[in-house]
């Protein structure tokens, strides 16, 4: 095979691989707004990579999930992407850890990792 042929073959293969990776890494979108996450219960698979896509509709919030070592700030107008490959099954609480007003204490949710 010529070098030119290899290049012609390689570019589409690289694009296909990137597309495949994007398609096979599921995304879970979580919105934050005073004083709740939407949804407030999400389910992911044990050992399967997942990307949490976090957005805020009003102000800065936080998402903290201590048992899986996750912490992110959620800034309005941008997507915060958090990659995660859960290594243990169970239900794990997450909560807003940036004080956001009267109701902040109730802003929480659950991540369920299914075996």
């Amino acid at each position, binding site marked *: 095979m010529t070098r030119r042929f290899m290049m012609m073959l390689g570019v589409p293969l690289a694009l296909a691989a990137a597309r495949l990776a994007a398609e096979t890494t599921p995304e879970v979108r979580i919105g934050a707004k005073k004083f709740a996450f939407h949804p407030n219960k999400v389910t992911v698979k044990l050992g399967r990579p997942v990307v949490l896509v976090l957005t805020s509709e009003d102000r*800065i919030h*936080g998402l*903290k999930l*201590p048992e899986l070592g996750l912490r992110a*700030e959620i800034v309005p107008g941008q997507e915060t992407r958090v990659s995660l490959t859960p290594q243990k099954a169970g239900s794990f*609480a997450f*909560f807003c*850890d*940036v*004080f*956001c*007003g*009267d109701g*902040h*204490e*109730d802003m*929480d949710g659950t991540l369920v990792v299914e075996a």
Partner: protein
Amino acid sequence: MLQRHRRDFLKLAGLAGVTFTAGLFPPGEASAQAGGDFHFVQFSDTHWGFKGAANPDSENTLAKAVATVNGLANPPDFIVFTGDLTHTTDDPKERRARMQRFREIVAGLRVKDVRFMPGEHDASLDAGEAYKEFFGATNYTFDHKGVHFIVLDNVSDPAAKLGTAQLAWLEADLKQRKPDDRIVVLTHRPLFALQPDWDWTTADGDKAIELLMPYGNVVVFYGHIHQEHHHMTGHIAHHAAKSLIFPLVVPGSQPRRAPKPYDPAQPDLGTRDVTMGSKVSLVELPVTRS
């Protein structure tokens, strides 16, 4: 001896609650440095402006606490408020109105040496801007009769951090202290991870504790959790105070933090009298005056 007298007069006045004596400040070291025993009173979490079923008497509780402390036969040397002076609001004008009214009520305290610090309800939504207008700096130090008091702000950053600048300030202050100096830290949130998923922690509180650890006589008083709580990190004691708005449930006792149901006969609210002698003695003072 002085402690026994204090308990006697508190009992005579019908005010004494549970007494807690912490084995701090070893007698030899303390007596060498102390300018004499003294006591102060801790108010916490008054949440002026809160309205709700958790305290139907919320408009009167703070004034009753002021009256209770004014009724002490032996007035304290000074009074500290460990944060959440007001209940949070998104409205900056209302926030200032609450601070104004709070200040008017506590002006009724007969003891005029009063030290304030913010809670997240006072300072987290505007980085302490309104608080500073009314009460001044959010972190500072003062000295009283041989004891060094350090006020730490773990609320102006809404992510519950002291921050690198304040930690550097703390480190610089501590470098001026001797290892056996008597040090009291006053703050709002617990510096240790009491219940992180209930926001009962300071994100970088472990760094403050690490800085304090070389000093042999340190005690921390804080609020935030609306109940009496005692905890040791090494030789450092941490004492949480009751609130003056509503009690919260015991950490970890249920999935979500929540107020305890209101009980008019036993509202579980109060202030605390702290005697600083060769040991630290705490006497809980329920709100009794109408």
